[in-house]
């Protein structure tokens, strides 16, 4: 059980990645004309479900369907 709980630490990453705007508040590198500030945050929207998927798989009980 304790080993499984460790998976939940992955969920801290979206907070670290998005809640410190000083790190991403800039224009470069732009992507298809979209400044870094905007596409970087959108990237986190895509990464978050991936991380949650990892936690779902990592903590799944054997009898879950």
């Amino acid at each position, binding site marked *: 059980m304790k080993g499984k709980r460790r998976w939940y630490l992955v969920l801290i990453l979206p907070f670290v990645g998005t809640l410190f705007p000083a790190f991403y508040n800039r*224009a470069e590198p732009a992507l298809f004309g979209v400044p870094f500030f905007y596409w970087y945050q959108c990237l986190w*929207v*895509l990464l978050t479900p991936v991380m949650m998927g990892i936690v779902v798989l990592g903590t799944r009980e054997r009898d879950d369907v």
Partner: protein
Amino acid sequence: MSSGAIVLLALVAGVTVLGFLAARWGRGDLSNIEEWSLGGRRFGTFVSWFLLGGDLYTAYTFIAVPALVYGAGALGFFAVPYTATAYPIAFVVLVRFWNIARRRGYITAADFVRDRFGSRSLEICVALTSIVAAVPYIALQLVGMKSVFMQLGGTFAWHDGLLALTIAFIVLAAYTYTSGLRAPALIAFVKDTLIYVTVIAAAVVIPAKLGGWAHIFSVSAAVLAARPKPTSLYLQPSQYVAYATMALGSAMSLFIYPHSITSVLAAKSAEVIRRNAALLPIYSILLAMLALLGYCAVAAGIVSKDSTAIVPLLFARMFPDWFAGVAFAAIVIGALVPAAIMAIGAANLFVSNVFNEFSHVRPRGEARLAKLLTLAMCGCGLLIIFFVPVPYAIDFQLLGGALLLQIFPSLVLGLWTRWFQPGALVLGWACGIALSCAMMVASGFSANYTLHLFGFSLSAFIAIYALIVNLAVASLGTLALRRGSLALGTDGTVPGDYA
């Protein structure tokens, strides 16, 4: 009448028929409050996805967020980190809440708080806060519908849209009354389809017509800088804390809204919640796209005194008339569905946790009272938009969220610990609510308050200041009460209930 208006009316009429037919969906005695308000707790991953999505992507997403980006630049993009961080919170909190609620048969969040802390006064505080916080959110839905009606003009715009809004709400109230949660759950399918079609069309057509993203951003940068009150595509360092606290505060309050709780409790298993929490962020991509419509409107040269009008104006200019009708239907239905769920959630709280504390009604009377209260909630929302002017429509949601976050210690921390004394929690809650209200008034009903302290000034979301004070008071109060060895309330739950 324009072809857009005809398309809108046809879609809304179709959805209304669906709302009444929903009463026949699955077997259930709709005079039972659990059947009426939670759809008999039978919804699987698929229905829950649409129901929760239907809840969370509303006029807030379509109208309020682009309006803030249009008016305030980068600050408005806080909604993106907000939705990115909301789901990990949901994932951890809601699964635990669902388990305990199912084991003990709770139909509201306040039921849990009463049982956990053995305190009726805490239960009533939680219930009243949730009800009050839902009203401005319903008001925001009305603002979204109003913006569409004003754009259509003619009869729709008669008396600031009052007639059209009233009719929309009579229709909403009527099918919510008959079908309960089944109505918004069924309509959510239509709503989400319309939203996807609209957002994808907007993402393809609008940037192409405006000369591509690079052009949109460079024009927006120039226009924002040239305004009388200049803003920018990037945050000022003084806005960093406001940006992060608005995102975090909104994320923490999202899933304690009565309408989210209602949709969560309607799920048939904890696994449904886990899967949905992991999948739902996909919707947030739509939100980011819609937020950027604020800049598209700037680049398209749209000027409006009322920032909530910019998305309807943009759609009317960029889409052929009939498709603008589809887009408007997406906004109107996208406001009706969550408003219905919010009204159901709030009515439920009032009947189960406030009214029943004073007067016990029989189960049949309970459901009837809840149905009548949904009408009252919609009426309050209507009053608010005609009488409370806020700087941005999004402030309705943010200020409601600030109040709501004050139940976080009792409800969310309460899922893990009973360390807090119920009396201390009530005191912390009262301080948090009082501070939020004082700061709202002091900042002119804007969501952020600037604190000047020892020569520093710090601008942050009111909700977070209030939550810090709330937690400090609750902790100190608990320590003081423990020292006085006051008897603890009884915990109705046992550890096994949470797994």
